[in-house]
């Protein structure tokens, strides 16, 4: 039966860890803005992209 007690202790500990993680993420502002990051991750990381999709003629090579 002792094994059940051990298991329960482990499960509660894990749950507390998750609660702590949630608390930290809340505190660090991860829920402040739930819209912008979802858009931001879709932006291309084109660093001065060689190919300009809009077909702009005057590209500067800087």
């Amino acid at each position: 039966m002792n094994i059940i007690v051990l298991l329960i202790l482990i499960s509660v500990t894990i749950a507390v860890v998750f609660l702590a993680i949630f608390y930290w993420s809340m505190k660090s502002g991860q829920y402040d803005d739930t819209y912008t990051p979802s858009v931001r991750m879709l932006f291309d990381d084109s660093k001065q992209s060689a190919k300009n999709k809009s077909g702009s003629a005057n590209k500067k090579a800087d």
Partner: protein
Amino acid sequence: MEVQHEVIEVDVQCYHCGQPCEDISWQDDKPFCCVGCKTVYEILSANDLCEYYNYQQNPGTQLNKPVNESAYDYLNEPAVHQKLLTFNSDTFSRVNFYVPTIHCVSCIWLLENLKRLDSGILKSEVNFARKQVVIDFNPEKISLARVASLMATVGYAPVITLNDNKATANPVFSADKKLITKLAVAGFCFGNVMLFSFPEYLGLEGEDSLKEIFSWLNALLSIPVLLYSDTDYLTSAWKSFRQRQINIDVPIAVGLIALFGRSLWEIVSGYGPGYFDSFTGLVFFLLVGRWFQSKTYQSLAFDRDFKSYFPLAVQRRQGNEWKPVVIYELKKGDEIKIRNMEIVPADSTLLTGEGFMDYSFVTGESKPVKITAGSHIYAGGRLIGQPVTLRVEKETSQSHLTSLWNNAVFKKPQESRYRKILDKAAQRFTWIVLAIALATAGYWYLADASQVWLIVTAVLMVACPCALALTAPFTYGNMLRQFGRHGLYLKNADVIERMAVIDALVFDKTGTLTHGLKPQVDFVGSLSEGEFANIRRLCSFSTHPLSTIISQALVQRGAGEVKEFKEIPAQGIEALINNDRYRVGSAWFTGSTPLPDDSTSVVFVSINAEPRGYFQIKTSVRQHLEPMLRRWNRPVAMVSGDNDADKDRMKMLFGPDAQLLFNQNPHDKLNYVKELQQADNKVMMLGDGLNDSGALKQADVGIAVTDDTGVFTPSCDGILQGDKLPLLDKFLRLAKSATTIVKSAFVLSFFYNAVALSFAVTGNLTPLIAAVLMPLSSISVVVFTTVLVNFAAVRVLKR
């Protein structure tokens, strides 16, 4: 003399802003409606930022006026730095700008790539919900003023006011965060307590040692709920108890403490497993209700005062040069310079120059007032014309306008003036529960004295009005969302309760009943189509507000070339178009006879020195208002700062019974609302400007009407989109039905309480019954109110 033009209508959309193009200018095979849009495109394409146009079609906003490079110079003053920068060192600064033009994905992309426009900008991050941009920059490479003007040149001018400096500290927002953390803790404990209560639910026998461990774990898990999650309820109950008042939190707190105390006692004494699942569950549901009610519109501001309208800084003479100075440092006797379209920050006297002062902001009077040297000028006026110099007579905080904020109305918090429905119900409820508890105690004392303590605590426990406390948050929270969906954004849920009892409406005229942006333009006289087109072209060259109105109102299109354009301040504009000399402006300037009636804005036209007629500019009334006012059928009034030129039109609109007051200053408006309230009316005030602020605050409900939620609105209880004004009576009816829904949900939750109490007084409340009954009552109340509110909203608003 008549020159006809071939007018070819081409429906081309501007590549930048999506507006229909009139004079298409091409760049890289893309059409642009104006120089402003084209310039932005050129800047972006020169910096290889054309990806901007890939995320959204026509993402830009039209730049109506060219960006004045020196407009942001005041941002370089150390005093301004101190107010605006959230972090400042020699090589690193951080600023938080509010940018109302943020509206789409492309906006986010461009603003986050600002560093590609200037290497001094290190990083920029957008918060879309709050329409804010946090910018890190290197002050050695780029000044704060340059950052702001750079943003302005690409169409994202930051709006900077005294009010929201260091905008990061948002009290509403951090309170919200705290609530969610409390909710998370309660939810976590509730779930785990339920898990450990399973043996009890299933009635499993044996393994008593394990059951005991579970009970102790439950007690342990309930401690954070008692000490952290429910603290709002306990402190609020304690406060109101000390003031000898009973609000809804008092019976809740008593119930929660009874639950926890009894459960702890049961476990310690080995009597039973306790009711920790009910305890944590109650707190969890209560917090869910509170969270649901706290829906906020983060990008809207409901608490702005006059400071938001005033510029942050102004040019002041220091010796022989003009230097920007923060306005609260202005002293009596200072000389300041005001440019076209700038706002005068303090009461002052005009020293040199002349022009027009637009007080529409302050008084509601839409016609600009002519000013000459020596004129007294009130704070809040907007200059139209050439730059002028002024001598400050009073400091900003002492100005005529700002004295409105010294009125007592602005001193006390509005919420305290109302007793909520819920608290009234709670009071009655508490007395009933106390009476029942005493009666039960008396009965059991005679029947079986050893049971008294157990049964009285059981009564107090189940009487905890959790379902009662949930009705209001869920009804009003749902209502808040429904209103928001239809263009009425309320500050908080309490406003709905006050809306339900409104029986008198007071409207402001300019900007509220009438369109702020689309005036009605009538031409009296005779002009050919081609001449109209030429006048439109001519007017589009001028930035004077009347010119803008005329050029926007005329539909005729033409391509006559404008030569020798001249703008004579306070007189008019003239130019040579197709060899005809056009003059548009005052009667004297065009050689016309002035009109005897001086009450509307009139612009005269002459061609080759021959008077041809005049434009009459009237504000146009919003559509569909009349049916709404007829449906309302209760006291209604209009208070306007404007002159009574519109009297007949307003009489037609309001009907014969309405009271129409003109030439009212802000203090008059406030007093008018007060008088109505003293005659036992519950007043809703609808206004739009700074001049309505006092009345909005004084009224039981103050609603700001606006065509663009991005612009500043005065302090108010709610913001209503201008085109949704015809729904006003329906909104009020819906608010009334919310009260009915709350009351019927009260009945439902009283029913649950009666059932639970019958178990408790007879001594049959087992933990299992408590565990079923308490969540069941909470959930059914939530479902009941949600369904009814949505049903009511569909019924009232859709028709």
